[in-house]
């Protein structure tokens, strides 16, 4: 650890080494190298002091517990609060309208779609959220009228690098599945740790 105070530097008669600077502390000549100078001029940053700060690496981002290291845009996605993949896909045309960290989207049947993830999760235990857009069906009516129809969606498979979603039309306050339907849009997001 380089000395952080000039008073801690050793006294010298002249600056002899390469890449060294001479300092004067109350009439005493001292020498300091670049490391010592940067420590002196740029103290470590804290909650109250501006200063130099180290960048968090992947494991520190995944841990999410270090308050002394900075997050960079290229690594923020490793934090547990960041979505590891997401997709917006058309329910009928199957077009991938918008996606992140996905390698494929497959339509296997009415109301049945599967995705593969580019950088996989560390295992099959991750949190998936799925949703749909179905303006033709009054989603809210599901709770108010016994025979009204509504649509629901959920994951039907989940592995480290794949997932499946099913979309169905329900009736009887959402208690009975009428059939599977293709929504206008599928949305799916996943949270967890990368492999």
């Amino acid at each position, binding site marked *: 650890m380089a000395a952080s105070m000039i008073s801690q530097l050793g006294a010298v008669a002249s600056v002899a080494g390469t890449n060294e600077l001479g300092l004067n502390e109350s009439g005493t000549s001292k020498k300091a190298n670049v490391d010592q100078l940067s420590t002196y001029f740029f103290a470590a940053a804290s909650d109250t002091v501006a200063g130099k700060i180290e960048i968090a690496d992947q494991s520190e981002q995944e841990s999410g517990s270090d308050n002394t290291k900075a997050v960079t845009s290229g690594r923020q996605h490793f934090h547990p609060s960041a979505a590891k993949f997401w997709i*917006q896909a058309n329910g*009928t*045309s*199957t*077009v*991938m*309208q*918008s*996606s*992140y*960290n*996905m*390698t*494929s*989207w*497959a*339509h*296997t*049947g*009415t109301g049945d779609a*599967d995705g*593969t993830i*580019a950088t996989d999760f560390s295992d099959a235990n991750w949190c998936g959220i799925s949703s749909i857009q179905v303006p033709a069906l009054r989603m809210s009516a599901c709770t108010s009228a016994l*025979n009204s129809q509504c649509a629901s969606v959920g994951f039907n498979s989940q*592995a480290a*690098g*794949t997932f499946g979603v099913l979309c169905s039309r329900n009736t009887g306050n959402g208690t009975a599945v*009428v*059939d599977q339907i*293709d929504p206008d849009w599928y949305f799916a997001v996943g949270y967890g740790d990368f492999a």
Partner: protein
Amino acid sequence: MSIRKPDVVTVLIHRVDGGVTLMRVVTTEYRPTTLAEKEAGHGERIANWTIEPTEEYINSIIKKHDWPPELQAVSWDIVPDDVNEGVDHHFRNAWKKDGKKIGIDMVKARDIHRENLRRMRYGPMEKLDVDYQRADEVGDIETKIKIAKLKQELRDVTKHPDIENAQTPEELKKVIPDILKR
């Protein structure tokens, strides 16, 4: 266009169960450009990663899906992205591979249509059950016979000869027995 809309190749998979899976395989994922990249003339978006859709790569994606036995791939082709445009979606589960296009398996389509008719008759049948009980409570035999006849008519909707006679999805969709139109 969405900045995050990926480039894809479309793969039509012929399955063990005779059906098809339509799969979009990402070949380029995009991200928005930074201000510096924009100033350097890279436009609104830039490739995050790109991959060649080789046979080996597409096979690896199919394998990764790990579909159940009936959905396993028998063969596949890269097809135009709009291969499913104009194909009847009402009978999606009757889709079959027709060369590099999508065709309709009419045997499966008829089964789907029969299932739709069963769903359509559920409500009227429930109402007739209630009417029958009420007629029974007051001993109205004439009404009970009439209702029994209607219920049989509803049971027979899936046996309507026009279902077998229909040769196209359009013809099949029009086969709605009169009792279900009331």
